């Protein structure tokens, strides 16, 4: 750009290279993370909602290594999930466990990291296979004799060759439960009107929950009108603007069901901005969301078994490594948690050191 002497230029370039390397080390590349750094230490006596303490596997996990593979390393919900997988692996007796994750929604990058780990030698994999991008990796693991258990987003049997089993919150079931809770609340308050559905994006899990919500509301509370789902994306400002538009466009809006983990924060702000009080149910027991339910800004949250599904997946993995039978489909309940039932979730977050 501007003339600098050769010697000085080399010095500046060297300094720049060091700075870039230092910055890169801070997170430029997708990184692997073990239980110690971004997820807390193992909880010694786990009984977070009656979880088992023994895997029932027919062999020992001594000397065995497992990895938990996911995208979105920076996401608070993934922190809870990873802690469940790490704790489950420790309880199952694995010699080592590692969270292999990329930053952002980088699925190909995550698959690359997992493939590298597989090449270095692992005995089992728990993976949050958020899309078919992960299916070839699962098939490759199967070919290498590494068992794979999947979590969170259900996959039809046979769709991901090599997948041994899966643990997930049933979106149809919690979509129905959310509709029933909102419907009952509106009936009690004597309110009738439109109900918004917001999704982070149109992925199968969220679509299934939205569909179940709409169908249940139509069947059980036909006087309420459910609007077509709207995608809100990941940017809070944009999501709040979209929600404000919905509130403005539908003056009779009385409630909202949001399948995004940022939904509670976004809807609380939207209600403040518009001065409208809605019955809102959204996702996940992150601490900020629990606080919003506690303060009454949000009616309730869908308590997906984020920790539990991953803990149980690690247990199932131990059984799979021993070649013990593992059921393919393991749907778990995701209750609607209202203001009066928050205490166990605060306790869980506190015990697993996620605040």
């Amino acid at each position: 750009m501007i003339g600098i002497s050769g010697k000085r230029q080399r010095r500046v370039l060297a300094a720049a290279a060091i700075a870039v390397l230092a910055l890169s080390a801070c997170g430029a590349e997708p990184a692997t993370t073990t239980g110690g750094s971004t997820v807390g230490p193992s909880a010694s006596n786990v009984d977070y909602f009656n979880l088992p303490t023994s895997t029932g596997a027919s062999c020992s996990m001594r000397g065995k290594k497992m990895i938990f593979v996911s995208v979105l390393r920076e996401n608070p919900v993934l922190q809870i999930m990873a802690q469940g997988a790490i704790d489950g692996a420790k309880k199952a007796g694995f010699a080592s466990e590692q969270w292999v994750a990329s930053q952002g929604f980088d699925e190909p990058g995550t698959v690359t990291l997992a493939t590298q780990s597989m090449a270095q030698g692992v005995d089992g994999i728990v993976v949050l296979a958020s899309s078919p991008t992960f299916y070839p990796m699962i098939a490759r693991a199967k070919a290498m004799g590494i068992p794979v258990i999947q979590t969170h987003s259900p996959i039809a049997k046979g769709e991901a060759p090599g997948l041994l089993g899966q643990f997930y919150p049933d979106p149809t079931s919690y979509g129905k439960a959310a509709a029933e809770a909102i419907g009952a609340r509106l009936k009690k308050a004597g309110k009738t009107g439109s109900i918004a559905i917001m999704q982070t994006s149109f992925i199968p899990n969220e679509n299934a929950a939205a569909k179940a919500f709409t169908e249940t509301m139509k069947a059980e509370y036909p006087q309420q009108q459910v609007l077509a789902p709207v995608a809100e994306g990941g940017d809070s400002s944009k999501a709040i603007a979209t929600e404000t538009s919905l509130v403005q466009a539908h003056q009779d809006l009385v409630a909202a069901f949001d399948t995004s983990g940022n939904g509670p924060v976004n809807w609380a702000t939207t209600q403040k901005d518009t001065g409208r009080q809605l019955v809102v149910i959204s996702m996940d027991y992150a601490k900020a969301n629990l606080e919003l339910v506690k303060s009454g800004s949000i009616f309730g949250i869908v308590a997906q078994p984020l920790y539990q599904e991953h803990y149980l997946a690690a247990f199932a993995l131990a059984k799979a490594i021993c070649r013990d039978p593992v059921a393919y489909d393991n749907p778990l309940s995701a209750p609607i948690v209202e203001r009066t039932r928050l205490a166990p979730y605060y306790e869980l977050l506190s015990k697993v050191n996620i605040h």
Partner: protein
Amino acid sequence: MSTVHATAEEQARTVRVRRLPQVPVEVGLGALLTVIVVMFTALNSSFWSASILQAVLRAAAVAGLVVVGETLLLILKQIDLSVGSVVSLSAIVGCQLVTHYHLPWQLAVLGALGVGMAVGAVNALLVVWARLPALIVTLGTLYATGGLSLVISGGLQISGLPEGLVGLGQSRLLGLPFAVYLLLAVVAVAHGVMNLTVFGKSAYAIGGNERAAVRAGVPVRRYVTCAFIASGGLAGLAGILLAGRVGVADPTQGQGLELTVITAAVVGGISLFGGAGTMLGAFLGAVFIQVVTIGLVLVGLDSTLQPVASGALLIVAVAVDTLRRRARRA
């Protein structure tokens, strides 16, 4: 024969381009904005209301601050892709200062501003002094600052912010949040600086022809360094305001914002080739993006089609910019 044909075609094209009306971008964008507002209002009367105007300005407030910094760099023929991550890093650092170290919230604001400026200084060091391409450097700092947000926050949201900080994001005057007034003030000052000061005029000169600017004795390195630091600082300020507004700092906040602000700037008439455009235009671009986003929801367009509309908008804006440049050359 073919050469004669080609020349004739070229001449005809040049004449067509010359005939394009040469109105200021702000006027054109203002007119387009009016047409779109009328159109959305015709499709849904509730679009024309105080609450929608407030929603547009509230949504534009955070992104708008970042647009101002990005515009300054684009005029200088530079780019900063790290702004999205700077928004989250500054929010995380600022909120940690008050929740973890129990410092006064005013220091959180200064801390966030400082973090943004520090990242801007790193960008400047690498781009201006080490002569590395801005696109690559800021892409690197986008990832690096995103990683730092994760390390500092442990990947978790920071809630329980003090009232002062929440008030900064949520307090209102005449129905509009403080952030909107701050944005209007920043745009006014930046517009003035770019049009009335030596720095502003030099910035256009640098973006238009850097070598000529150097030969004319313009302190190019200093000005570009200042621009990167200002861009980082504004992103830092936007980050802490966003955290105050939603009451939470989150390592995912601001993700993808860099593309939104570049789109807003380009729609607002800022040339990706440097040396052209105004702060007022960029501000109108930010408002325009929000009007379209909100309007499409209000008229009930399937939300899967909304990214298509946004993408088309960006392509049209770049095409118009290219045509204007050709017309100017012709």
